[in-house]
């Protein structure tokens, strides 16, 4: 939960508030870009942050900062992932840094092998904890599309896990 007063101060041009807001939002931005666009995560993080802070004054409701940041980050990460056409398997080195447990590494590897669109809905549901409706709003998609992507992701993960 980000303090709306902090967002308001940042929108008003308080640089210390901007810096503090950046620190608050960075972990979520990184989680999303690392999951949605692992092969271009650093570029996606930078571009997402630039988009967020360049357009911060357009956010009318400071209380919506998290949802708004999530949306911009996902849009940016997906755009870069598609541009790079890097939906192929990614080296598991980033996963190894996340958790030393072998099974978790395998799970994260399987996740990273999913197409970006499926990876995104899994990230929003399983990592960010959003409901299907919230994920649909974040992605500007019908709930049905989110559900079908989740189902396909689950089937792929199950298949990848068992083989």
């Amino acid at each position, binding site marked *: 939960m980000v303090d709306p007063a902090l967002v308001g101060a940042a929108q008003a041009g308080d*640089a*210390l508030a901007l810096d503090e807001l*950046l620190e608050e939002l960075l972990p979520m931005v990184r989680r999303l870009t690392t999951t949605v666009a692992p092969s271009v995560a650093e570029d996606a993080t*930078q571009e997402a942050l630039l988009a967020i802070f360049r357009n911060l004054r357009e956010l009318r409701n400071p209380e919506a900062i998290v949802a708004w940041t999530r949306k911009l980050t996902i849009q940016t990460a997906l755009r870069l992932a598609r541009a790079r056409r890097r939906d192929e398997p990614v080296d598991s080195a980033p996963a190894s840094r996340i958790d030393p447990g072998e099974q978790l590494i395998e799970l994260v590897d399987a996740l990273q092998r999913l197409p970006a669109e499926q990876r995104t809905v899994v990230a929003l549901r399983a990592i960010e904890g959003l409901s299907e409706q919230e994920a649909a709003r974040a992605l500007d998609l019908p709930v049905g599309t989110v559900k079908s992507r989740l189902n396909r992701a689950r089937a792929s993960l199950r298949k990848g896990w068992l083989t």
Partner: protein
Amino acid sequence: MADMSAEIGLDPVVRLRVLAAALPGSTLVTREIGAPLASVWAVVEDLERYSPLYEPSVASAAGEERGGRKILHMTYKNGFREDCVVRLAAGWCLMQSPSVVVAFAARSTKTGTLLVHLEHWRSPGQASFAASKLEGELLEIERLAQSLP
């Protein structure tokens, strides 16, 4: 020196570019400094000693810790005085007074140090700082860094 990106969670140079994106009218300049990061940052972070040497308008700067924050008492050559709140970390220096925002970010390169400098008037309607002013400051910081033992 400590790993820059680990301390803040983001490359300080990227962080400053993000901050600049949120401050329309701010001036941002970059210079590849011919001195190691440790020397450059020794100059930048010692605001009391060095800022009057590279910032043409500053007569003196006196720091104090107040309520867990670093405060810099600035006296300008025209007699004007104001206090800056300072956030310092490895490779990151952000200062804000009622009238101005000043920031530096640095990272090591193969040949020296990439130093990025921002200045921004907080009052609306003020003309942006001239890039040449900031570039002059970076040149002076380079000279000071190169003169360190």
